[in-house]
């Protein structure tokens, strides 16, 4: 039965859903781009504030959802990334000739899905959250459908994601047939008592395929570069940040909660996937001439690093994963934000080919500086946030004695440095008379520009003085007894 404590804990999710309904009715009443964006941002901010209240009220658990510290962390990450994406989409959609307002509706629905996903402790809510997160993304990726690449990316994601969902569902069905339970804790306990067996193994493997697709772990990564390249800037940003963070948190919850997952073969499989993901992601990024594709491959590699936390899965693993996710989100939002700003207001395909960025420094010094900081952070250079994240991951790997993975991280970082530096060199080359796409002159005054500048400052601040975030993270991720 729902009590007031449950309602209280559900407030953030309810607020986001209510905002979506409000936005929908608002569109039906009158199409107002600025007002729609404002209402969406207001609703998300309210949800963030209510999240703080929920956090101070303590843990609440329902049969389907659990509101503990890990889900709070996940919700904060999802909401903050959605806010950044929404702000950037306002600048982006200004120039879009079609209907602008539905983009916000889709993004709010996806955010609600992400929040349900990070709080799920039952296969029903896991599936529901994952689908609510993915369905609006099809629409968002194909939003500028007169552009062929956007349409292509939307349809590609739709088809491949549906296939991955089929894997996930089949895996769930197999696990259910073995354990007779659908809540994750009970299911894994049931598996343990029945000793697993081949069907349970197949079920766990199939679920791993489904979730691995969303995280673009290497054998299931093929969609990533095409979808990132084709999708409109804000949609690709959302896909790379909020969506991936939510799926990773739920995977983290499954692996951490379940003693059944602490078996050697699973760690070996995850470790192999992590190593493969790091190396392949970084190697393929080397040959890209398109910044969005390059960022796509780099995000594949980064999730390879993040998987190390799942492989180790004890000690500081959750804290490490949280810190790495935060640094990844800040940096990726900044980098994609610059791409989005350069393509705003919308006028055809996004400016993502590298030659658009040639000599950017001489035209837009601050924007080039932001991109430089983000790329340095992605490469993991000290005094940026990326260094702190990578430091934690390496420390975790060394502590657990996973030398292959540590070697993979180091090799991946070296390869990564090369292609990040290649982009940076392009930014500072003298422009040979060729003008690429450009941001509007007053970009720094607009909300999107402020967000991007703020993100760059955060990246540096966190790199120089990480203590507050680390403290916050150790509070958030310390288990409650």
């Amino acid at each position: 039965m729902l009590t007031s404590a449950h309602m209280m804990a559900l407030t953030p999710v309810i607020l986001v859903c209510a905002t979506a309904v409000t936005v929908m009715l608002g569109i039906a009443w009158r199409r107002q781009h600025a007002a729609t964006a404002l209402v969406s941002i207001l609703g998300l901010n309210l949800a963030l504030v209510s999240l703080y209240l929920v956090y101070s009220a303590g843990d609440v658990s329902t049969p389907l959802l659990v509101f503990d510290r890990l889900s709070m962390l996940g919700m904060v990450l999802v909401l903050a990334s959605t806010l950044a994406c929404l702000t950037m989409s306002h600048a982006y959609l200004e120039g879009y000739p079609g209907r602008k307002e539905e983009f916000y509706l889709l993004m709010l629905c996806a955010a609600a899905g992400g929040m349900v996903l990070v709080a799920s402790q039952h296969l029903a809510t896991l599936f529901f959250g994952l689908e609510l997160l993915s369905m609006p993304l099809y629409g968002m990726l194909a939003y500028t459908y007169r552009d062929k690449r956007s349409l292509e990316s939307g349809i590609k994601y739709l088809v491949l994601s549906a296939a991955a969902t089929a894997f996930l569902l089949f895996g769930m069905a197999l696990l259910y047939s073995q354990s007779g339970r659908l809540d994750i804790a009970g299911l894994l306990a049931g598996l343990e008592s029945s000793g697993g067996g081949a069907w349970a193994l197949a079920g766990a493997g199939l679920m791993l395929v489904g979730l691995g697709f969303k995280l673009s772990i290497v054998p299931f990564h093929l969609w990533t570069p095409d979808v990132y390249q084709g999708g409109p800037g804000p949609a690709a940003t959302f896909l790379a940040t909020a969506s991936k963070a939510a799926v990773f948190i739920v995977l983290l919850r499954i692996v951490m909660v379940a003693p059944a997952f602490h078996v050697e073969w699973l760690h070996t499989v995850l470790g192999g996937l992590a190593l493969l993901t790091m190396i392949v992601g970084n190697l393929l990024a080397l040959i890209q001439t398109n910044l969005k594709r390059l960022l796509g491959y780099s995000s594949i590699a980064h999730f390879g690093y993040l998987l190390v936390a799942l492989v180790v899965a004890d000690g500081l693993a959750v804290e490490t994963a949280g810190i790495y996710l935060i640094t990844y989100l800040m940096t990726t939002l900044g980098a994609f934000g610059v791409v989005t700003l350069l393509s705003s207001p919308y006028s055809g395909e996004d400016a993502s080919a590298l030659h658009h960025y040639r000599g950017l420094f001489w035209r837009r010094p601050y924007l080039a500086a932001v991109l430089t900081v983000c790329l340095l952070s992605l490469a993991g250079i000290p005094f940026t946030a990326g260094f702190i994240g990578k430091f934690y991951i390496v420390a975790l790997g060394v502590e657990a004695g996973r030398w292959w993975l540590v070697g993979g991280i180091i090799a991946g970082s070296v390869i990564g440095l090369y292609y990040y530096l290649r982009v940076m060199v392009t930014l500072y080359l003298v422009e040979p008379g060729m003008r690429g796409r450009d941001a509007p002159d007053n970009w720094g005054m607009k909300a999107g520009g402020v967000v991007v500048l703020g993100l760059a400052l955060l990246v540096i601040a966190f790199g120089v003085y990480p203590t507050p975030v680390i403290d916050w993270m150790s509070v958030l991720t310390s288990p409650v007894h």
Partner: protein
Amino acid sequence: MEQNATAIIAEHWAIGVFIVAVIALCAFMIGVSSLLGGRSQGRSKSLPFESGIVGAGSARQRFSVKFYMVAMLFVIFDIEAVFLFAWSVSVKEVGWAGFWGAAIFIFILLAGLVYDSRVGALEWAPKSRNPARKSGS
């Protein structure tokens, strides 16, 4: 073994009768109408009938998207009505909490319906093309 077979027959003879009856009914309908019915000749008369869609030809056909739109909206609202059935059989048990839950559910559905009608998803005939096309929407 024999008893087993008898038991199975006793349990399933109705299904056997049903299958035979279905085949007999189909054969009867086709046979009688081919004997008694009139015949007409025409260019498209020998094509199979598939819900009004020509069953053979190029795969590169253009459909009006309206068909799918209406089908999708129908499925969505239909499925949501199914959820309300679950409420209707348990109205007394779930009490006011269930009532408010259902009320919110119906309100969201209604909001969706208002939105659909306002964006023109329910209009069968396309609007006059010129203003919409020129603004690019």
